[in-house]
């Protein structure tokens, strides 16, 4: 519908320009010796650390990517599934929703050691941490979407004798998709954070563990390289969810037109 569709260049240029400018400023600050390089490593040193430590950072990034993707997927499945169960019965909703709020408020750093005791030192602990911090926005937004089905359309489905399943799959779930996508956008970033925090506590593998180790050795350049990778991972998640939302909604929803 748009008469002048923004090109990739026009979309991509501003954020890239901001990135390059801030890198140049950071580099300048250190070059002018306003701040010592061991305190704020200049971008050139961070890039060098990224290159030199890739044998450690690369596999760590891959581990974190898989763990947070799995945790995120689990959140989407369990979150949307629980929301469907909750709207099917007011009683279930009243009984369980308060406990769902628990997931939003739980301090992951405090319960990560418990998760290690229960689930061990492997990836499953990281996946569960990512799941715990990211499920609430999925559940809450799916619930809002499922509860705001147009009453006239519900009447229409009743008039034609639609079954519960038909009403769920042909009306309530598709109508809730824009809300569900909002939940997914928030949950994607949270899953990455949850995974990295848990990795820092567990200290075995992943970006979080690499970060914790580099910090102990005061290798600030490696710390920055790790943070940079974590940020890109979060961005990747965000792009993934946006792509998904676009594929699902672009033909009919105002947010994608």
């Amino acid at each position, binding site marked *: *519908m748009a008469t002048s569709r923004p090109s990739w260049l026009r979309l991509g240029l501003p954020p890239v320009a901001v990135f390059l400018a801030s890198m140049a400023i950071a580099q300048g600050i250190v070059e002018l010796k306003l701040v010592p390089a061991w305190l704020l490593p200049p971008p050139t040193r961070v890039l060098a650390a990224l290159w030199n430590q890739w044998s450690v950072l690369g596999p760590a990034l891959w581990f974190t990517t898989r763990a947070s993707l799995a945790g995120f997927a689990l959140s989407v499945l369990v979150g949307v599934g629980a929301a469907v169960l909750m709207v099917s019965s007011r009683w279930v909703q009243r009984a369980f929703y308060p406990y769902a709020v628990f997931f939003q408020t739980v301090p992951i750093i405090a319960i990560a050691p418990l998760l290690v005791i229960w689930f061990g030192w492997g990836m499953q602990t990281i996946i569960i941490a990512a799941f715990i911090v990211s499920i609430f926005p999925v559940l809450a937004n799916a619930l809002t979407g499922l509860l705001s089905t*147009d009453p*006239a*359309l519900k*009447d*229409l*489905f*009743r*008039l*034609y*004798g*639609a079954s519960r399943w*038909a009403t769920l799959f*042909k*009306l309530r779930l*598709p*109508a809730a*998709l824009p809300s569900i996508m909002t939940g997914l956008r928030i949950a994607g970033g949270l899953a990455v954070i949850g995974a990295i925090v848990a990795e820092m506590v567990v200290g075995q593998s992943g970006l979080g563990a690499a970060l914790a180790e580099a910090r102990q050795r005061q290798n600030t350049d490696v710390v920055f390289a790790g943070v940079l990778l974590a940020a890109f991972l979060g961005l990747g998640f965000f792009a993934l969810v946006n792509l998904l939302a676009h594929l699902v909604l672009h*033909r*009919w*929803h*105002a947010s994608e*037109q």
Partner: protein
Amino acid sequence: MVPGRAVTLSRIQKTFPGGVQAIAGLDLHVAPGEFVALLGPSGCGKSTLLRLVAGLDQPEGGQVLIDGQPARLQSGQRQGLAFVFQDAHLLPWRDVLANVALPLELMGVAAGPRRKAAGLAVEQVGLSDAMHRYPAQLSGGMRMRVSLARAMVTNPQLLLLDEPFAALDEITRQGLDEQLRGLWLERRMTILFVTHAIAEAAFLAQRALVLTRRPARVVLDHTIDLPLQRSGSLRGTPQFAAQTAQLYEALQRGDRDGTA
């Protein structure tokens, strides 16, 4: 030709949630194939009446009979009934054809016959060119025509319309009125049409029932004395003005009675 259904309401009692009496002891009979307009002030309970006839709500007292049978959402009755809401209420993620096919899909009609029937219904409201467009790409009038096609796709014997064209501009509304009138002349299903527009009621219906403010009572049961074949130019004639004048007078009387 699809025969219409008879609708009988006897001593209907209905209270809004919150305790306001919407309908208190209303009687009404609509013969098969009649086109009846329900005319009344906003909030007088005419939409409530329509929901009772559809079986979407149940009255606290009295009976709603359709062809002599109590109105409930049973499979037998559903077949012959269609409801058009105040706004189009389409599924935004479906194109025009799939929206129109929805009632047949929910009733379990196979994909082949479903598409064929939906295609015909879309054609009938003049939207063949927009068959594969999405609701967001349509004007308000076009969306309402899709809604009308969706109601017609099951060949209903009883068509209930709740101020369907109220939100449209005058020209679009008149066009849709003529289309609806044409569909009725062709099929002769029973139609209950709720509106607060006097001219619309006079142009469309064979019979107009003017209701008072709530609790709704019938203040005038008037047979519209106009020819069967009606075109837009009829609206400018003295005969038409005579009909609207009577409805207007009754509407005012009903408004006074209700507040007194």
